[in-house]
């Protein structure tokens, strides 16, 4: 199909600020195609270098607690039930019953229809976007494939927000992106962002999932990251967790570099969320190092960095117990959720 490049795009403020008021498919494409390329070998070797940092003793203690504070504790299964969500929330509020000093996670992440159950289970612990407590994040826009009409995606989003979701994890239309219809992807993100608007005029936080495993090249990841930020994303997120490869260190490093570029350009801080495949403390610490050495450690706070994970939490708890007690316990000393 041919793409009409002269149609004006939705007037997203960031895009207008950067590209100008004559925002069209063509001007957007020119901007995205003009980005500096990514050398895959160099990117991967930098990530491998960051992964060799040795985080010990006091640094490790701080890192483990920080990882817990940055986790979006996630359950995204077709078999999820209200009972499963209740159990997940209990775990989020009190990750290690044997140690009350254990911090809470940042959010629980569920499918849209289970948002009300999550909110109910959290009760007074529900942060609702506030500084303390736990947020509820919902995946929306026909997650994970994104294959639905815009109307369905918007309804999906609005319903989750109405049910009390504080954060929306949307997926981009990878098919449209790969066929070069950047304007369509852009318009959809802008529209979903608008659907995140609550009755009182405030917005649920929008995380835009690029599904980097389907974008195939690092150049595409860089373009998609810029596209999502220009359209209004609060967070850019690597993956749904349903496609392999999910989050990798090089991809996350690249997205952090884009966030750094945006910060240098505008002074505005965008969040990054690697999701899927981060299962061990050791792995998660490598991500902390990468964040701290790329954009700075002020990014290691819940509104700027998250881990999308489920099994990661228990490994961090085991490591934490080892540091407290001096010996390794085992899987039976941490709770399943």
């Amino acid at each position, binding site marked *: 199909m041919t793409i009409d490049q002269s149609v004006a795009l939705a007037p997203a403020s960031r895009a207008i600020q950067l590209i100008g008021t004559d925002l069209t498919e063509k001007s957007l494409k020119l901007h995205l195609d003009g980005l*500096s*390329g*990514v*050398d895959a*070998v*160099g*990117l991967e*070797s*930098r990530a491998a270098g960051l992964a*060799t*940092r*040795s*985080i*010990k*003793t*006091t*640094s*490790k203690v*701080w*890192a483990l607690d*920080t990882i817990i504070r940055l986790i979006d504790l996630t359950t995204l299964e077709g078999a999820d039930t209200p009972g499963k969500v209740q159990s997940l929330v209990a775990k989020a509020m009190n990750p290690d019953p044997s140690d009350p000093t254990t911090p809470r996670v940042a959010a629980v992440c569920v499918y849209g229809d289970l948002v009300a159950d999550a909110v109910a289970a959290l009760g007074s612990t529900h942060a609702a976007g506030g500084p303390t407590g736990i947020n509820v994040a919902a995946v929306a826009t026909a997650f994970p494939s994104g294959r639905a009409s815009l109307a369905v995606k918007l309804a999906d989003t609005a319903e989750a927000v109405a049910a009390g979701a504080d954060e929306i994890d949307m997926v981009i239309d990878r098919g449209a992106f790969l066929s070069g219809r950047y304007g369509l992807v852009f318009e959809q993100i802008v529209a979903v962002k608008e659907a995140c608007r609550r009755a009182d005029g405030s917005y649920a936080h929008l995380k835009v999932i690029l599904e980097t495993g389907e974008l195939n090249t690092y150049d595409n990841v860089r373009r998609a990251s810029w596209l999502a930020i220009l359209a209004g994303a609060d967070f850019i997120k690597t993956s749904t967790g349903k496609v392999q490869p999910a989050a990798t260190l090089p991809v996350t490093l*690249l997205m952090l*570099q884009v966030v750094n570029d945006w910060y*240098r350009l505008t002074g505005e801080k965008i969040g990054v969320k690697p999701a899927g495949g981060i299962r061990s403390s050791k792995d998660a610490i490598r991500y*902390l190092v990468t964040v*701290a*050495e790329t954009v700075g*450690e002020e990014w*290691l706070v819940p509104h700027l960095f998250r881990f999308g994970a489920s099994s990661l939490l228990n490994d961090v708890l085991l490591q934490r117990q080892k540091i407290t007690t001096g010996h390794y316990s085992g899987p039976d000393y941490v709770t399943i959720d």
Partner: protein
Amino acid sequence: MSFLEYAPAPESKSILHLKKSYGLFIDGEFRDGHGTPFTTISPADESPIAKISNANASDIDTAVAAARRAYDKVWSRMSGKDRGKYLFRIARLVQERTRELAVAESLDNGKPIKESRDVDVPLVAAWFFYYAGWADKLDHAGLGPAPKSLGVAAQVIPWNFPLLMLAWKIAPALAAGNTVVLKPAETTPLSALIFAEILQQADLPAGVVNIVTGAGDTGSALVNHPDVNKVAFTGSTAVGRAIAKSTAGTAKKLTLELGGKAANIVFDDAPMDQAIEGIVNGIFFNQGHVCCAGSRLLVQENIHDEVLDRLKQRLSTLRMGDPLDKNTDIGAINSKAQLERIRTLSDIGEEEGATRWTAECAIPDKGFWFAPTIFTNVETSHRIAREEIFGPVLSVLTFRTPAEAIAKANNTPYGLSAGIWSDKGSRILGVADKLKAGVVWANTFNRFDPASPFGGYKESGYGREGGRHGLGAYLQSGWHAESQRALPPAVGSPAKPVRAAKKGASK
């Protein structure tokens, strides 16, 4: 506490089994030298590590005689297949003792453990594995049928990559069937002496490799020894020139790998984040103690400010300190003398009008340290743009067109290496073709592989090390040997062309 002030993560020294003193390794055993012993120190805190024997002329005689005996009686008669077995064994032992060698290297040299552990020692093993494979395939090295070994090789190596330079020298020499007398640098003898223990462990026949320690006079006695057939030197251009003079007119075959002042050229279409990494790796790897370091950054004028901004942000995350800490990026300068040279040249840079910027780093009280430094507003006539500083000091120059970049890159007496950063393949190939440098890296820098030849143009030396080409430095061509036999002895008259001589013989 800030997370980025990572808690100390030092590699333990307990893996080392250091002796209080080390002798010379001659004829398969350690023995005391006849010169005045010296102490090798750790440049990070100036603490003594061990006492090292000093070889005088008589020790060199003994070592060369041992190498000659081993050549005549054992090594030159051994099949390539069997020589290869010894080299494979050495490579495996290096791998087994990787941690120990890495700790020794960082302790004695001052380089960060992450480099000695992840770069130096793995490459040492790779070099021995690579040339082990060649030992029984010399007929296929492109040097004609049955190329001949040369005899005894005298090898003198520098202090910047002590063990790696040893491997670059010893592995091809042994694969080609030569025996060796090697002198490590006086500030970094430790890893070579531990390597000597590995040779004992590998049961390498006595005298095939001899390691003699000492300073410049020891090296001079070695390369000038009359019974040496081959001289291989890596180090400064000044010493290289002296060696070239002293070996001129002798039958000694000579290869020199000397200084450099490499241009690292960044075009405006370069992959920016990776180019920044490449600039950092190009000049701050191993504290800039790299002959092929990218010490002249040539950056396209329209991206100069952005590159400098990003570079400074990146440099502020580099961690300088204890070489044995696994998170250290920049270690200690190898010696007081080298530190003085870096300081002097940097001061000259300021006097000449260049603008100096130094990363904020806490400098330890003891030891030899120099924080990463960038000079901007550098002109091609400045000494910091022409002379090899051999330290963590980058001179930044600009260019407007590819032709100007090429002209500036080639405007140096050296020609060891160069780097090109661009997303455009045709530009990389076009520019690489016109650079007068032995190694040209594209979108990377300071990458080494045993299969790739390495060496320079002009004052950076001659001969190639590594790859198939590296064998040529230690072999006499099979064709050459044939043609020499066919020539009649030259008696005071100009040598006749080979073809004419053959014609005469057939008549």
